[in-house]
């Protein structure tokens, strides 16, 4: 019996009850309420009153039963969706297709020609880039496209883009975000006279941080298999704030087939840009080795300022601070400055030997290892506040990170102390051996 019929019957019953009570009222001249009270009254009342009471009682009982069962049923649907879930799972493919279709107008097919890889073969030490086309996402009406730097590992001489309507353009790389493995491209739409032809492209919409939930469906889309249609792969959002807070992790396939392509939700909104990523390594091709491991990453762009920075043509790199830290306390906690590198951001912020760093931006500093991760969260051009204790007195100063100083290709004295510039390039790496030293000290 359908629910509709049940409700029709309930409505019918209620109507009948109303009719009966009206009938009783007319006959005995009393209201339903008084007929209940006068249940054991005169015979005349009893005739009309008894059925009325019984109907109401029964009606209430039945209504109660129906309501409670319906309610538990409704609750069940909310807490533990039964039929809804399985139907949803079986209908999910429709959603995947619809979402993919929705995002297509914002995608471009990227082809590259020439470059070092084309001649030398193996690039990046890990894996040679394939020969197929790659994917990019349009981020502005006037022709800016974001994609994965992996797609240009061979440093191609010529890059062409094709939009979903089939128009082809030349493009040139504007800047790289080396922390997120992104490259911003610009369509070259200037005519011979130097005027920009209007493009009016479809701009992708990125989801906000709050909208992205761990466990939600994720669909990765990429043109890399050499077909005009993108291949799709599905999974869920596995984690947020991975890779120094820069990436969303997924178990959907993220591979050379879709680097630079979008990871979308079932509504076709963009969660992030698929990139190869291995938080433990900064090499350009690192992360490719995880392409079928169930671990993949996409870079969210809820912070559109990244795009704005790249538009100016400046690369974004890992932040460089310029101190050598050691644990402040015997149990290995806290961070104390051992040395400050000359002309480094740390020196410019006024940091001195033996200062104890307690806060970096909004983050509280716990130990050397965690401090390295905190610094890793910042980009080379970001500014923040650093709070430290000098002689027990808290002090705060402005800190402007920079890029690490250029590493001289020739090795300095093999026996030179730790202060050699080569050792200064990577904050995270430096913090690592320091920690083991601390452990050794504690062991003594």
């Amino acid at each position, binding site marked *: 019996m359908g629910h509709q019929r049940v409700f029709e019957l309930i409505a019918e019953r209620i109507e009948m009850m109303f009719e009966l009570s009206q009938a009783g009222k007319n006959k005995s001249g009393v209201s339903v309420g008084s007929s209940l009270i006068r249940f054991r009254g005169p015979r005349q009342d009893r005739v009309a009153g008894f059925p009325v009471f019984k109907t109401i009682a029964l009606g209430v009982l039945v209504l109660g039963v129906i309501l409670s069962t319906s309610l*538990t049923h409704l609750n069940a649907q909310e807490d533990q969706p039964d039929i809804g879930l399985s*139907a949803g*799972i079986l209908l999910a*493919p429709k959603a995947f297709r619809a979402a993919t279709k929705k995002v297509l107008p914002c995608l471009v097919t990227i082809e590259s020609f020439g470059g070092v890889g*084309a001649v030398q073969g193996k690039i990046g030490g890990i894996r040679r880039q394939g020969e197929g086309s790659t994917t990019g996402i349009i981020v502005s009406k006037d022709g800016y496209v974001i994609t994965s730097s992996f797609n240009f590992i061979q440093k191609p001489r*010529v890059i062409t883009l094709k939009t979903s309507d089939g128009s082809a353009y030349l493009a040139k790389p504007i800047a790289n975000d080396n922390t997120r493995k992104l490259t911003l491209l610009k369509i070259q739409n200037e005519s011979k006279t130097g005027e920009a032809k209007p493009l009016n492209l479809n701009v992708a919409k990125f989801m906000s941080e709050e909208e992205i939930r761990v466990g939600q469906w994720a669909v990765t889309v990429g043109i890399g298999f050499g077909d005009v*249609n993108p291949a*799709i792969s*599905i999974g869920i959002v596995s984690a947020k704030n991975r890779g120094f807070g820069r990436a969303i992790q997924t178990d959907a396939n993220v591979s050379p087939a879709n680097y630079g392509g979008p990871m979308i939700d079932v509504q076709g909104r963009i969660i992030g840009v698929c990139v190869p990523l291995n938080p433990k390594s900064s090499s350009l091709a690192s992360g490719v080795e995880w392409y*079928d491991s169930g671990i993949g990453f996409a870079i969210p762009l809820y912070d559109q300022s990244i795009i704005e920075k790249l538009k100016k043509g400046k690369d974004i790199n890992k932040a460089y601070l310029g101190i050598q830290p050691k644990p402040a306390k015997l149990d290995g906690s806290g961070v104390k400055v051992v040395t400050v590198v000359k002309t480094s951001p740390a020196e410019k912020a006024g940091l001195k030997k033996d200062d104890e760093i307690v806060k970096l931006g909004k983050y509280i500093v716990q130990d050397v290892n965690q401090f390295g991760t905190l610094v890793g969260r910042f980009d080379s051009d970001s500014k923040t506040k650093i709070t430290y204790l000098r002689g027990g007195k808290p002090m705060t100063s402005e800190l402007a990170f920079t890029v690490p100083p250029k590493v001289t290709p020739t090795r300095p004295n093999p026996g030179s102390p730790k202060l050699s510039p080569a050792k200064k390039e990577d904050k995270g790496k430096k913090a690592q051996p320091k920690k083991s030293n601390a452990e050794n000290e504690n062991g003594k």
Partner: protein
Amino acid sequence: MRHHLKRSIAHWIILVALAATIFVGDDSLADERLNGFLKKAVDIAQPKTVKIFGASVGRVEGYGTGIIVSNDGHIITGNGVYLNGYSTRVTLNNGETYPVKVIRRDSNLQLALLKIDASTPDFFELGETPAAEKGDWVIAVSNAFKVAERAEPLSVTLGILSLETKMTAKRRGTEVIYDGPLYLIDCITSNPGAAGGAVVTADGELVGMIGKLIESKETNTRMNYAVPEKLLARFLAGKPSESTQASTSPKGNSKPADLGITLFSLGGRKSPAFVDRVRRGSAAKKAGIRSDDLIVTLAGQTISNSTDYKSVLATLIPGEKTVIVVKRRNSLERFDIVPDEKK
């Protein structure tokens, strides 16, 4: 009136009883749908899929999976050296094991047709209509890593159909001619022993057969894919596969085409297709191609390097108009071009 009321009370009791059964019944029904929405597909596919054991040769695994395609013991699987030995045998879903005879092989699609002397009432009827489209759930049934032994059921994994495409591929580092259409699946099947397994829809209909381990030339990654059902049907019927046909009869009897373009030959065969010289009076000259243009596409195909140019040029037919796109300074130029006959 009272009679009416009595009847209505009776109605109500029935109604309440019914309502109760609806909601009670719902629970068990819901459980089946919730936890077993793919059970039907698995129940259908398992008895139609078999384990194959043969001789291991060097590092090549000596086992695989196969699908039953007739009621009299025909089985299709991926072609491989492990089928060459004398002791190749097939284990059915019920644990019964039979010796195998290899009937036919297709080196192009890497398929093998086997036969056992047993009646196999559960089999996949091969058709030409695709059972699934992009995004649909697919279930892969295989004996990857030889996890299942004898009567143990095969391993079942869930994924979606990623893309139906054509592609060039590599096997064990060397390029192979595999330009037949195939289904990419978003389901890890590129593992030892999985080849020959069944890929079915959520309703248990056959989508294709898990293909042998190959690497995509486009991405340099291992691919998870299925050989589409219609290709299996053609193989079973003894028809040559599409790409074999293509290679045996290239574009009829037409003579090779010529555009009159000489490319820069710097950095070997993988160098970009920059135009060095355009012969006077040639097709390219008439079309408007100039020296220093970079050929980007020809006849709709991307020209990444001079090798691509040569292979696409070989497919052109003299006198048949096509399109060439070149990069000239900061723009892409598109020209119609009518190839000449090569002299």
